[in-house]
Structures are given as C-alpha cells and as structure tokens.
C-alpha cells in the first residue's frame, strides 16, 4: 500500500472518528471553569493565611522574596512552541527559596520519601510524617522551592531533605506534586551518592554533599553539590572541597542534569595544561625551625577557559603553617595567596601569561626533625583545579 493509499484510509478514519465523536463531547463550560478558579483561589487563600500564621508563630520563616512564579509561557509568539523544559525563556527568574515555615505545605505533610543511596537502613523511606519540617531529631527539610517542573501550568514542590545518622547530614533533593490535601512523590533530583570519602578512596565523580537548593520560573532546579575527597586535612571546616552548582530538569519520567559541570573532574583531553611539581627544598627557617619550599609550574595556563587554582593541602601537624605565592614568572615576586588556613592554602593563577608559577612555604617549628615532620605530615597533596573541576592531583612527598 502506498503512502497516498495509507493517507486515504487514515483521513477516512479520522473523518468518521470526528463525525461520530464530536456529538458526544459535553463541554463542562466556562461557568464551571470560573467556579473552579474561584474555588481554588479560596483554598489557596486559606493556605496562605495558615502559612503566614505558622510563620508568625514559628518566627523562623525565611523566604527570600514574596510571590510565586508566574505562569510558564509555552508559546509566546508562534503557533507552537518548544518545550519550556528544553528551552528556558530568557526571562526566567529565580523562585523564592523557603527555609522555614510551611515550606510550601511540606513542613506538616506525610511525604513518601525515596530510599537513600547511602545508609538506606539509617534514613527513613516510604511514607514519613513531618511536623514543623522535621521527622524525628535526625531528619528535617532544610529548604524548598516551588516551580512548574512539567510545564502543566501548576507548580510542584522540591525540597532538600537531610538525614543525619552520624556526624554528617546526608542531603536528598526530592520533588513532590500536590495531590488533593497531600503530596505524591515525583522523584529524586539528586542525592548524596557515597558516604564521606577519604583519599585514596578515589570517588572523584560522586556527589558527597548536597548543600543548597534553588530554582527558577522555567522549572529548572539548581543544587549545590560537593565532592570532599580533599578535605581530609581540613580540620578548620574551610571550603576546601569541590562545590558546584548543577541544574536539573524533569524529563517526564526522571530528573536529568541540564546545566553546570557534568563531573567533578576536568577532562584532561580538553584542558591542555601541564603541571610540573619540583622536589621539595628544605632549608633553615629565618626564625628557627625548618622551611619546606614546594614549587609548582602550570604551563599553558593562558589557554584555560576558567580560573586555574592550585591548592596545597597537608595533614595536621602541630605548629606547621603554609603560605603561598603566585607569580607570572620564576624568580619574580608574586601575589601572596590569602585564601587558606593552617593546613592548606589555595592560590589563583594569573592567566595573562603562558605559564603560572606558584611557591608554597611550609614552616616547621624548631625542635621537629625531618623524620618527625615526614611522619606527621604524611602525604601532602597538590590539587590543580580549573573552574569548579579538579584537573590533576599530585602527591608532594616531603
């Protein structure tokens, strides 16, 4: 059968279908539509008033801006439009992030929580009753946003939910949809994928922290995620881990990443940098003790598309301090690296020249021998990062 014959058969069937079905259609009518809108506005007003009351009573309502997201516009200019999920409008604006109060109705709801990837036996899964945003002492909703994830004209709710079975709270971002007086679970946006990893566990690709939640009016969710392999020496709680804002969209059946870095590690085939690490040089320190100098040269740094930072991290040795200096040429005084703590220092390179030169000085207190220093410092590491990704990691054995 040819295409034309196919079409004849089909158009004939369509005509029959249309003629037979059209008389059976009973429009509910515009009066009913107006009544439904009025009804929903009344219900919503009651909900908003209740939320405001809870906010006043709780005293902890922190919403960054007032008002909800406007309607998504599937078709602002043509007869059809691209999916809002695929083509966010240039006028997308951030939606409010609630960090207390009713959290868009979730704070006092029974939520069907997905099983955790990490410590699933220690965190609740399935229907879980929340009260004031908490489900017991170790499970709580940190923050929530409301935006239209599936472009159906009605906003859904997305929450960052923490479970803390041990010292570290494990984040899980979950999307919900209003269903009558309650909520149904749409799915997990992103969650912690491995427990706290210490080098050399080699989990550079996995999400080990979920720290912040945001969203915009196009239905896109933004989440700050972290990989913390580098924190083993960071006893000060400094921001030494890698943190990235990643974006996610609902594709009809699951959430998929739509923006931000796809990985915590940079593709070395794409980033053409060379990193050369000199052997540590030990010498007497001016005020006594020992000074260890570590030199790092980053070649072709000018070709990097994002800021290049170099981080030296050492284990916790009493009295040891680090200072760093960045320069655009060897043997030329550069800029001191201000960012750091006792156990680590991070320097941003100058991308205005072909190569960047960094010098780190560890000062070891008097009375500590080199063997004690090596024993206490253990492995020290040089991390080179491009933008929010790690390019390379080098052991700096002293």
């Amino acid at each position, binding site marked *: *059968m040819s*295409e034309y*014959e*196919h*079409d004849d*058969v*089909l*158009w004939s*069937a*369509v005509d*029959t*279908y*249309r003629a*037979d*079905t*059209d008389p*059976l*259609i*009973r*429009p*509910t009518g*515009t009066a*009913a*539509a*107006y*009544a*439904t*809108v009025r*009804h*929903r*506005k009344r219900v919503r007003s009651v909900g908003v008033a209740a939320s405001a009351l809870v906010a006043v009573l709780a005293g902890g309502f922190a919403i960054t801006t007032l008002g909800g997201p*406007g*309607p998504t*516009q*599937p*078709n*602002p*200019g*043509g*007869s*059809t*439009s*691209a*999916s809002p*999920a*695929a*083509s966010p409008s240039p006028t997308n604006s951030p939606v409010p992030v609630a960090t207390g109060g009713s959290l868009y109705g979730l704070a006092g709801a029974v939520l069907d929580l997905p099983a955790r990837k990490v410590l699933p036996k220690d965190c609740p899964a399935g229907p879980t009753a929340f009260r004031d945003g908490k489900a017991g002492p170790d499970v709580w909703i940190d923050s929530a946003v409301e935006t239209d994830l*599936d*472009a*159906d*004209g*009605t906003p859904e709710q997305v929450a960052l939910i923490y479970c803390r079975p041990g010292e570290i709270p494990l984040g899980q971002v979950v999307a919900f*949809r*209003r*269903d*009558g007086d309650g909520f*149904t679970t749409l799915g997990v946006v992103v969650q912690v994928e491995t427990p706290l990893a210490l080098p050399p566990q080699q989990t550079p690709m996995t999400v080990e922290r979920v720290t912040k939640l945001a969203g915009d009016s196009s239905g896109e969710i933004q989440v700050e995620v972290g990989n913390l392999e580098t924190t083993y020496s960071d006893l000060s709680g400094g921001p030494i881990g890698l943190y990235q804002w990643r974006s996610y969209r609902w594709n*009809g059946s699951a959430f998929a990443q739509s923006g931000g870095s796809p990985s915590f590690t940079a593709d070395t085939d794409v980033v053409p940098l060379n990193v050369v690490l000199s052997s540590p040089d030990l010498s007497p320190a001016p005020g006594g003790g020992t000074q260890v100098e570590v030199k790092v040269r980053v070649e072709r740094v000018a070709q990097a598309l994002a800021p290049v930072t170099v981080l030296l991290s050492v284990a916790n040795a009493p009295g040891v301090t680090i200072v760093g200096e960045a320069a655009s040429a060897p043997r030329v005084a550069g800029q001191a690296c201000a960012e750091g703590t006792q156990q680590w220092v991070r320097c941003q390179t100058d991308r205005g020249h072909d190569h960047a030169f960094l010098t780190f000085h560890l000062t070891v207190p008097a009375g500590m021998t080199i063997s004690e220093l090596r024993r206490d410092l253990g492995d020290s590491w040089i991390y080179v990062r491009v933008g929010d990704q790690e390019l390379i990691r080098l052991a700096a054995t002293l």
Partner: protein
Amino acid sequence: MAPYRDDGPDRRADFEECYAAHFHSLTLQLNAYLGNLSEAQDMVQEAFVRALARWDTIARYADPPAWVRRVAWNLATSGWRRRRTALNFLRRQREEHVPAPGPDRVALTRALAALPDVQRRACVLFYLAQLTIAEIAEQEDVAEGTVKSWLHRGRTALAAQLTEARKEHDHV
C-alpha cells in the same frame, strides 16, 4: 477567530470564544490519544481552568489556544489522569455520563492504542490537530526527521490495522 485584545473588559469574551472554538478539537485529540473520552474532557477542562487563572497574561500571547493545547497535552502525557488533583471538584459539577463508544467510533482509537506513545502522539497531532511536521517537532522537542520517522511508521501501522478492521467489519 477575532484577534485577542489586551483591554480587560473583553477578556472574558475572549476566554469564552477560545473555549468554544477549541474545546471540541482538543477533546478529540486527547480522546484519540487516551482512548477515554471522559478523561479527555476532564483534561481539556483542566487546561482551560489553568489558562483562565492566568488569562490576563495568556490573552496577551500571540496564540493562546496553543498554550491551552500544550498544557492539555502535558496533562495527558504526564500521568495527571492517574492523579486526583482537582478532579473531584470537577466531577461534582458534571454528573452526566458520557455514552459508551460504538464500534465505528473506536476503530481509530483502537488502532492508535496499538502504536508506541510517540508515534500515537505524532499521528494525532498530524491528522487531528493538523499541525505541520515542524510544529510537531517543536512541541515534542525533537528533530523534524524524527517526527517524519514516527509518522511514517505510525501511518503504516495504522493503515494496516484500519484496513484489516474494515475487512473484518465487512465480513460480519
């Protein structure tokens, strides 16, 4: 259909005109896709309710019916019909029942039901909504070649099933 006006007092008339012009057409599309007239009507009504709640904004769009169509289709493909959101309220207002479908009327929907979802959507949008291939590609967020492939496979399978059904009917 008259162009949509920006001035407030005419908005109600605009909405009612849009509803009258497109309720049947959208219901025909969704019923062909879902095979359930009652659900199709509920979804189209829900899409119009959502449009009405934002009509001040939507009325300014170049093509408000396309907004309603998109939302109705999103409802149909997002599993909204399996949820009870607002349906109870809608059902309280409409107590009449849709007649059971007859054999002629279900020939197309039965044939469509045998197709994969994407081919079924493409065929409904092409033959019932009468969208162009470019418009379907835009709505489905795929390449035009993909739509052509869906349509080619869909129409071949549909024609075979409809022809077979016609033969069976003729022999009865």
